[in-house]
């Protein structure tokens, strides 16, 4: 092999470059970290994305609003309901219509269930990243219960396309309330087990405490939102800043820590699961009656530009619709949380060990299709 100038330069400093990804067990998808190592120590990381770029924004320009909703599931596939809700809210606000309280309640419950399911999968995968393989199965076992609730009402387990501009595709199943209740009692028993297995573990704490420190300034500057940002004390919960759907009606805490390390990003998500359970608990018994779909002649937002922020399981999702008054958007832009969360990795993981890089990228909870769209 011919040695390039760069190789020689690296050799002199006893550094070398490895590619973590596009196929690597801990990047959770087709993401590539071009990582420069000196022994075990990470010198710098250059993230390369675009391996799963499908041009959702471009495709959406030729689809009507109800049609383009089903593409948003495929961005952050772990919070599909919340992505759908973002588009639905943006279109409804643009048209100046209000959905019924029943729809608002159901949307919020589905979104919170989705958030729990997403955090469960993250917990499972995070344990795997650190080498505790059993967490994966416990997390997925409990996530299955939520997916059953989704499947019974919406017909799909992962990519539901259930929330649509103007309301919901269908009414929820009669069993919805009962099953959700059952899940709340079930999962309140299982969550302490998660802590017992992983959070309290001395190896886990050693691996995560003080690792990957992200300062508040960095979090704001890079736009790191969601649980990752809140671990650094960034009050970025859109559910609190700009409440939408049924969030103004419920009481919950915005979970923040100021320490900003991997362990506290972990804790934010663990406590958020409790908070989400509380939100569902407040809403599930009080779902009012009402129509599930607005009687709209055509879903055509007026000419203008509209923006909607929602809080997905990973941070702030922005939907920016530029409408010319037609049935299709002139331009639709998704400000996805993972895109902003990804690029801080060089800042917080440099000068750590290679094992820490895996822990840190796990604690950012990256979903790659959401980065690439």
């Amino acid at each position, binding site marked *: 092999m011919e040695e390039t100038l760069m190789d020689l330069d690296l050799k002199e400093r006893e550094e070398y470059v490895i590619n973590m990804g596009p196929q690597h067990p801990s990047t959770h998808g087709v993401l590539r970290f071009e990582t420069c190592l000196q022994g075990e120590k990470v010198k710098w990381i250059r993230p390369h994305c675009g391996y799963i770029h499908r041009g959702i*924004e*471009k495709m959406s320009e030729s689809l009507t609003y109800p049609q383009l909703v089903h593409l948003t599931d495929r961005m952050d596939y772990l919070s599909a309901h919340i992505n759908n809700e973002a588009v639905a809210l943006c279109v409804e606000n643009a048209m100046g219509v209000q959905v019924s309280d029943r729809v608002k309640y159901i949307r919020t419950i589905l979104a919170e269930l989705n958030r729990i399911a997403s955090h469960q999968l993250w917990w499972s995968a995070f344990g795997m990243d650190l080498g505790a393989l059993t967490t994966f199965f416990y997390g997925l076992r409990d996530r299955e219960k939520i997916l059953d609730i989704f499947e019974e009402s919406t017909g799909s387990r992962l990519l539901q396309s259930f929330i649509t501009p103007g309301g919901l595709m269908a009414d929820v199943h009669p069993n919805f309330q009962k099953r959700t209740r059952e899940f709340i009692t079930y999962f309140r028993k299982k969550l302490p087990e998660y802590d017992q297995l992983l959070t309290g573990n001395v190896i886990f704490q050693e691996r995560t405490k003080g690792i990957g420190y992200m300062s508040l300034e960095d979090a704001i500057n890079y736009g790191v939102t969601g649980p990752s940002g809140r671990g650094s004390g960034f009050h970025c919960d859109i559910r609190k800043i700009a409440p939408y759907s049924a969030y103004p009606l419920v009481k919950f805490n915005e979970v923040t820590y100021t320490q900003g390390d991997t362990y506290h990003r972990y804790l934010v998500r663990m406590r958020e699961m409790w908070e989400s359970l509380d939100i569902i608990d407040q809403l599930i018994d009080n779902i009012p009656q009402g129509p599930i779909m607005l009687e709209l002649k055509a879903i055509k937002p007026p000419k203008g*530009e509209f923006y909607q922020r929602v809080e997905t399981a990973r941070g702030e999702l922005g939907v920016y619709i530029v409408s010319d008054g037609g049935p299709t958007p002139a331009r639709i832009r998704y400000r996805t949380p993972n895109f902003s969360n990804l690029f801080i990795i060089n800042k917080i993981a440099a000068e750590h060990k290679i094992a820490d890089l895996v822990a840190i990228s796990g604690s950012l909870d990256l979903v790659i299709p959401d980065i690439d769209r």
Partner: protein
Amino acid sequence: MQVEQLTTVIQTLVPEAQPGISKQYPEFIIPAARLHEVAKHLKENPDTYLDYLFCLTGLDRKDGFHVVYHLTSTKFPHIVVLRVILADKTNPMVATVSDLWKAAEYFEREAFDLLGIKFENHPDLRRIFLDDDWVGYPLRKDYKDSFTLER
């Protein structure tokens, strides 16, 4: 800060700034040449303190390329939208704000990748999603390729 106060702040800074298209947030159309200066002022002014850029969008409109900056503050609840209209469609160029908000560096790379808007003084202006040898900028309205779904 209220909309009126924001308007006065910006009007005193850039007299030629115009109220924007959208009614949702207070929006101002800033001349491209003065964008960086305005952004810097809005970020550092303790009354506005717009330290969090949550969205940067490139648009292809009839009157040229737009670059839209959604700004908010972690201290105050106000949101400000800045808009730059680049009438020159062949060589759209605007100063980068990535030195003020690090998040902009990657949003700008995306806008460059998909719309071909060039950002001056950007530290690392490469394509972010598409291959380096990709021809054209897909989100432009005049972009044609063999895969575009005809309806």
